[in-house]
């Protein structure tokens, strides 16, 4: 059955490819169409200023709203929750499994996608002649480039420049203070993503960059992404501050409770000095303009003496 569906899907997909390429050949090329390179390195051809935008990730939605494009957003994912009014928008399904039919039926002239959509969703949408812009920010600088890119594509370049310079100013206000800290003044910070299995934020994550910019040292120094780590590493490495992601699912604070109660962590200095804090995991992992809010929060938690 599964195989049958897959074959049907392939046949339909190749048919639609054929139709689209046939149309493309016959349509006269419009003058003035420019192109940009998106964050997956794809060349995106632009044809006028998009008026009907579909966002395939909550972070993309936040960028669009920050640029004042809320009215032009016609649909978002079921995970979107910010700004609050976004919940009124039609949704196209989940972040990892958007409903292609629903997207096409909205006849968008721009879909803003994420890396997770690279292999299956983006080719499918492009085959249907829909313009797709992919944002793939991995660092704070990438977030600001993403905002600039969206500004460029949607004709809101000035607004984007304003948002970016506002973010830069706030980041600089933090790093001006933390850059002066000597190595000995930087607390060792562990960010707990989940407690069972125990998972922490490693290198090449937003949390890692935020911890470092906020004047801390990430306890995880030899693993990238979100590794499952053993409890004994935490006892041995003895972090000064533990940040625990909370708010996963229905407002769960299980990782925070774990950090506060796990008996084998009782000698860890974060616990001894009462420096275990809950951090909104939904917000802190979201590569939108509000990532700066998270940086300021991290700075306050890691260096309360510098940031009141």
């Amino acid at each position, binding site marked *: 059955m599964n195989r049958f569906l897959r074959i049907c899907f392939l046949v339909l997909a190749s048919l639609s490819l054929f139709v689209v390429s046939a149309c493309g050949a016959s349509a006269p090329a419009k003058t003035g169409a420019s192109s940009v390179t998106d964050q997956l390195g794809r060349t995106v051809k632009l044809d006028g200023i998009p008026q009907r935008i579909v966002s395939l990730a909550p972070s993309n939605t936040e960028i669009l709203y920050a640029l004042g494009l809320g009215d032009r957003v016609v649909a978002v994912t079921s995970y979107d929750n910010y700004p609050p009014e976004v919940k009124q928008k039609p949704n196209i399904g989940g972040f990892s499994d958007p409903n292609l039919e629903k997207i096409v039926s909205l006849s968008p002239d721009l879909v803003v996608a994420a890396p997770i959509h690279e292999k299956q969703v983006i080719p499918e949408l492009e085959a249907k002649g829909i313009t797709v812009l992919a944002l793939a920010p991995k660092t704070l600088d990438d977030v600001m480039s993403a905002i600039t890119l969206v500004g460029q594509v949607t004709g809101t370049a000035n607004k984007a420049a304003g948002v970016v310079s506002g973010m830069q100013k706030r980041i600089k206000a933090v790093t001006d203070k933390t850059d002066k800290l000597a190595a000995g003044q930087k607390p060792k910070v562990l960010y707990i993503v989940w407690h069972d299995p125990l998972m922490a934020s490693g290198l090449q994550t937003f949390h890692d960059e935020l911890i470092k910019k906020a004047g801390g040292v990430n306890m995880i120094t030899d*693993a990238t992404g979100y*590794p499952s780590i*053993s409890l*004994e*590493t935490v*006892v*041995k490495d003895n972090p000064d501050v533990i940040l625990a992601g909370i708010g996963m699912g229905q407002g769960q604070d299980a990782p925070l409770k774990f950090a506060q109660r796990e008996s084998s962590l009782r000698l860890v200095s974060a616990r001894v000095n009462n420096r275990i804090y809950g951090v909104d995991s939904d917000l802190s992992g979201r590569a939108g303009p509000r990532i700066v809010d998270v940086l300021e929060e991290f700075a306050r938690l890691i260096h309360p003496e510098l940031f009141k």
Partner: protein
Amino acid sequence: MKTDISKERTMSAETAASDPAWAAHLVPWRKRTYAVIGMCVALVVVIAVATTVGSVSIPLSATVKVILSKLSFLQIAPTWQSGTDIIIMEIRLPRVILAGLVGAALGTAGATYQGLFRNPLADPYLIGVAQGASLGAVAGFLLPVTGSFLGMGVVPMFAFIGALGSMAVVYALARQGKSLPVTTLILAGVALSALLGSIVSYLIISSGDKMHSIVFWLMGSFSLSRWSDVRLVLPYMVIGIGVILLYSRPLNVMQLDEEQAQQLGINVERLKLVLLAAATLITAAAVSFVGTIGFVGIIIPHAVRLIWGADYRFLLPLSVLSSAIFLILADLIARTLLSPTEIPVGVVTALFGAPFFLYLLRRRRRVIF
């Protein structure tokens, strides 16, 4: 392989020298007794090594001192680094012991099912226990209930209920009057497993941000093992494995076939019921706390059979010991290979166990069952 046990014993001495294939199969008594003693020693060594080695390096001397210092009649001053005793006593040792207990349970249950069903493909999960436990565990992850009962968290409790529940359903479906036809039992188990498995799959894909925890649980992990888990699991293991070991002689007779066993004075139906109950209980207890760790239960009994022969009086205790050793080592690899990152132990058991088993299979090419 259906072997007449008494014949096997008399043949073993005569044919051992002349025919190497038979010699390998009919291991002399003395050798098998040594094997049991040797594996006991190996288990102790493996426990010691696994407690010493970990992502944090601790010298063997410190490990030994920490453990000895907990014995009240010895006075040992703490010379180790702070936190070392917590790592040894509260993180590693309960984990190693739990891995050993779970391994022993799965290996014993696997050997029992294989003997009871006279089917080399039988494993502890054949008749629906794993899928029942999985469904229970997934429900535990997804339902908005928290808290604990008798020290058992929601997930292990639901998993335990699910495992026993699915077993009860399979038993009720397969029973015909007073007898329990083995084929019907297996088929009912396989069908129920498929049904529950599809529900579990659906729940997983719709579980959103809990997906990672659920998948990790399903692959099996000892990452948060505590003494309280060991205390909860231990009574089931001791009673369950003890009962099964007592029935090793009837299990030998069962290898003839059910009718002959009946004629030889074995109450076959009662034997089936007792062994099924015991094997299911230890499997359910094991799986509930650490997830559905695959491969141990099917392969270790076969490996034991390949090396030491099919006599259940030795097969069962050797399976207990070998499976415990195997799972402790698998967990050791899981937590040290990519240290500090941990890999699910279920991935390791098959990844490292399968090549070893295939090697055994190639080396001794003969019918193993």
